[in-house]
């Protein structure tokens, strides 16, 4: 099966500019996650979708970050305006499971490395 696809792989922008990341999960995976991983740290969950609905965005900086998942498939994550501290790798992951009784691993894309100068 095809894996989780993310683009672009790298992005360099200046602070106060905007940027968007795209993710295509594995076909049939109901749940999609966006993580932010700052160098030397573990991934931090930004937002979680189940189908096209948001189930957790408690750690998403909503004043500058937004995300959507159209038709329960592809997803985009946007930052506007970017700050220096947004420099990180943005990871998308998907999983088949959608409820408490489902136990399935996450499949990760290769991530987008964002540098804000």
């Amino acid at each position: 099966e095809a894996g989780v696809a993310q683009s672009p792989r790298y992005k360099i922008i200046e602070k106060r500019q905007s940027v968007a990341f795209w993710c295509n999960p594995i076909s049939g995976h109901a749940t999609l996650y966006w993580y932010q991983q700052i160098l030397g740290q573990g991934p931090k969950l930004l937002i979680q979708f189940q189908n096209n609905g948001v189930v957790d965005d408690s750690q998403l900086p909503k004043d500058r970050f937004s995300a959507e998942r159209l038709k329960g498939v592809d997803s985009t994550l946007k930052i506007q305006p970017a700050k220096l501290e947004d420099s990180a790798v943005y990871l998308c992951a998907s999983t088949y499971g959608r409820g408490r009784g489902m136990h399935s691993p996450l499949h990760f894309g290769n991530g987008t490395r964002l540098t804000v100068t």
Partner: protein
Amino acid sequence: SQQGEEDPQALSIQEGENATMNCSYKTSINNLQWYRQNSGRGLVHLILIRSNEREKHSGRLRVTLDTSKKSSSLLITASRAADTASYFCVLNSGGYQKVTFGTGTKLQVIP
């Protein structure tokens, strides 16, 4: 906190030795997972253990889970240089499968 905490933060061993990493957490979980991340590469799922399981094996990996102590351990036997990576304890909790990562253990296996 729904985040696991790994111990040690860094570990350096000789090839052929065993490596043990521990994870402690505070919340109730659906399952606990371990992931590996090689430098500059993506995250790879290693093993998943459900909250009603106590031990699981996969190749050279052995995971234990003690829900009464809210702790888990990952044992890698007969380590290889290719095992050099960061290892993350990952908690799956809640009705919507919220998945949170710990801080990670950086393992170095010296050839």
